[in-house]
């Protein structure tokens, strides 16, 4: 049953994640730069990988607990004359049937769970496809779990089959009485009998305790990655978008040019094909005098005039002598070419601060280029060593940025360099950053200043909000994965507790026979769970954080709000895990005393 639940959760998680992944790919054909897509893909990959690791650990733990439960049976078989080989074969056959039945049931339930969860998500307003599922993926998970479970089970069975009959019958190895004798209750708990029983029980079943903490720790790592990783990734990506577009920024340009610029920004959200556009048409030129005038307006923080163009760039191959094969050369690049947006800027006036790698462009180096992440990833093998040609001129890349403009297919060049190669000076777009406190008045003054020149003022914060909503929608879909991983955590915990309580049933029964009320039994089980969850969390949370910060988001942006949300969510999940122990606790408190104390 427990194996089936683990397989079901892993199957549904992978199918559901894959469905979300497909959906993200669907988004990314219209939008999402390569850099942003990479974060989503990395997140999904880590979540699925951790889910499988946690699933296998849960299965191993449950099987070892089940084998320990059968040690007495093995002892009896050996005591009446069964050879070790015969005992091993008996239990191996039993294991094979159980593993196949469990995994098959789990796969079927997992597929149903996948359809149910997808349906629920769609009911909640998302648009996930309810088509056929990936059969190969289901078979892969089935094989993975059957293989691991059977191999681990055989290992455990082989070890159990070698136990001496006397030891197996008395279960001396399980009691570990010697370990208990020196144990003292931590000072914090005073002389609490409940605490004493709980600590002693955990120590008595030491190997099981360690395994369950490992198992819970793995599940906690998974939960931390999903909760912390999800929230931190979302915040970091939003921060990149904000820094790229700029906050409190308005666009000043001719109406058609402004529309075109917005359309380039919206390519991040959806694929939009637009016709050819003559950026250098004198109609769109902005007189330099207006820049000075805008700079003089009170409340204007920064003025970033730009010359925006579209053009074709061609990757230059980089050839260097092969250090391993003297006389041979290594060729980097494939002479690819593509249409990109080229933006001429004054490096010192940029409203964007969105550098991902390398360094900023400089007005002194007129051929230096800052490249959008999608362009760097799709048109270059190594953008920093390769140069490229555009407008019959050679440029070299000094930095890569995460930029939603033209969905990352963009280069930023010092405007003087660009003007000279395209033989056109001046600007066709001005980005103006205003002080949020003086925003309304500054906007009115800017509008007044530019209206006589036929220029329009467009608030880019609205575009920014659209992009933020878009990112939120995707992350909300992804974070729904946490529901399934949480199910996996609760399943493993309840599985452990059911087995653990079943192993303690006799002691709990004796306690009740002596007059312990059901509340005391419940307290023992819940406190035991709390300690295990706490240990699992102490191990899982830091490891999960390390995974997030090392593999997922090396340079995170975390707001205070996010820290509070993360803390609340993690506390809530831990509390929910502890609450899950009420089920086996209540069950133990209600089991009839006589069969409980008669249990051997």
């Amino acid at each position, binding site marked *: 049953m427990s194996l089936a639940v683990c397989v079901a959760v892993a199957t549904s998680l992978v199918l559901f994640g894959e469905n979300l992944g497909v959906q993200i790919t669907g988004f990314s054909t219209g939008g999402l730069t390569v850099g942003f897509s990479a974060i989503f893909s990395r997140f999904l990959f880590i979540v699925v990988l951790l889910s499988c690791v946690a699933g296998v650990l849960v299965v191993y733990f449950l099987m070892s607990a089940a084998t320990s439960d059968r040690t007495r049976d093995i002892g009896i078989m050996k005591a009446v004359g069964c050879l070790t080989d015969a005992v091993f074969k008996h239990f191996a056959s039993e294991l094979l049937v159980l593993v196949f039945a469990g995994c098959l049931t789990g796969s079927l339930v997992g597929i149903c769970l996948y359809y149910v969860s997808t349906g629920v998500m769609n009911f909640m307003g998302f648009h996930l496809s309810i088509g056929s599922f990936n059969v190969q993926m289901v078979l892969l998970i089935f094989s993975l779990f059957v293989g691991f479970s059977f191999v681990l089970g055989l290992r455990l069975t082989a070890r159990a089959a070698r136990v001496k009959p006397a030891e197996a019958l008395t279960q001396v190895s399980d009691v570990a009485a010697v370990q208990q004798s020196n144990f003292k209750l931590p000072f914090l708990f005073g002389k609490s009998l409940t605490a*004493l029983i709980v600590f002693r029980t955990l120590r008595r079943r030491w190997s099981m305790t360690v395994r369950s903490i490992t198992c819970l720790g793995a599940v906690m790592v998974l939960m931390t990655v999903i909760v912390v990783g999800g929230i931190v990734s979302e915040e970091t990506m939003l921060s990149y978008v904000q820094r790229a577009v700029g906050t409190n920024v308005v666009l000043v340009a001719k109406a058609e040019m402004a529309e075109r610029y917005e359309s380039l920004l919206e390519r991040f959200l959806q694929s939009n094909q637009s016709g050819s556009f003559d950026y250098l048409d004198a109609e769109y030129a902005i007189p330099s005098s207006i820049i000075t005038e805008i700079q003089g307006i009170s409340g204007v923080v920064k003025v970033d005039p730009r010359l925006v163009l579209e053009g074709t760039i061609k990757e230059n191959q980089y050839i260097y002598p092969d250090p391993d094969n003297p006389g041979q050369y290594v060729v980097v690049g494939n002479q690819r070419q593509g249409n990109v947006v080229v933006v001429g800027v004054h490096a010192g006036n940029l409203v964007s601060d969105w550098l991902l790698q390398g360094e900023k462009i400089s007005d002194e180096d007129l051929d230096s280029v800052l490249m959008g992440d999608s362009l760097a990833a799709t048109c270059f093998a190594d953008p920093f060593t390769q140069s490229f040609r555009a407008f019959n001129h050679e440029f070299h890349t000094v930095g890569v940025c995460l930029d939603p403009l033209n969905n990352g297919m963009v280069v930023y060049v010092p405007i003087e360099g660009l003007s000279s190669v395209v033989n056109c000076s001046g600007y066709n777009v001005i980005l103006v950053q205003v002080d949020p406190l003086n925003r309304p008045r500054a906007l009115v003054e800017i509008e007044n200043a530019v209206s006589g020149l036929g220029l329009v003022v467009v608030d880019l914060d609205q575009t920014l909000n659209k992009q933020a909503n878009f990112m939120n929608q995707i992350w909300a879909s992804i974070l729904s994965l946490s529901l399934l991983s949480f199910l996996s955590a609760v399943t493993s915990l309840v599985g452990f507790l059911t087995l653990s309580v079943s192993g303690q049933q*006799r002691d709990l029964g*004796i306690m009740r*026979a*002596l*007059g312990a*009320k*059901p509340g005391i039994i419940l307290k023992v089980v819940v406190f035991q769970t709390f300690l295990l969850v706490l240990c699992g969390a102490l191990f899982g949370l830091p490891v999960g954080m390390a995974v997030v910060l090392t593999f997922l988001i090396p340079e995170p942006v975390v707001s205070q709000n996010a820290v509070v949300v993360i803390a609340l969510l993690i506390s809530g999940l831990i509390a929910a895990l502890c609450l899950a122990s009420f089920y086996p606790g209540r069950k133990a408190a209600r089991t009839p005393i*006589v069969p409980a*104390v008669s249990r051997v």
Partner: protein
Amino acid sequence: MAKEKAVAASSLRKEYSIGGTVVEALKGVDLTVLTGEFIVVRGPSGAGKTTLLNIIGGLDKPSSGEILVLGHDLVKYDEYFLATFRCTNIGYIFQSYNLISTLTAKENLAFPMHLAGWDEEKIEQKSDDLLKLVGLTGRADHFPSQLSGGEQQRAAFARALANDPLILLADEPTGNLDLDTGLKVIDILKGLKRKKTVVVVTHDERVQRLADRTLVMSDGKVVSKE
């Protein structure tokens, strides 16, 4: 002055369902035990002796019939009341000792006293006295798995006396013991005679000789009263 009834059972029936088969453990048992009486119950295996003891001790409920223990109708009460009732009124010595495996001998003795809410000092004192009574002073900090069968039985005996119960129920208290340990247990039982109401399930003739009355059970019924 007439003695009060410590236990009054009438038409007690108990049925178990084992794998779909209904087994009748008690088939209409009538029984009265007076306060301070020492009763021995004997009979062949499967006669229903332990089941009767479990019902008197409030560990199990009859399928039908009436059972009054110290004036309480145990059928009517819920688990919370029965827990308190067992803790304060009943001392139960199980056939298989049933010591809590994670507690030492002394902690096992102290457990019912903790449940009854005694203060630490009193618990400590009483535990030491009981350990001395059963000759386990030197084994106080040993766990059940580190004690011999006889030592475990004596620890269980001491625990049954911990809360100074009005009724002592013992299921084969000398059944698994060697001669010497058995004699020690019998000595303790002798000491309890007239002080407590004692119901002992046993085949041990030495214990039977202590009894005021002996009930013989067979096939779920009391077949003779001696």
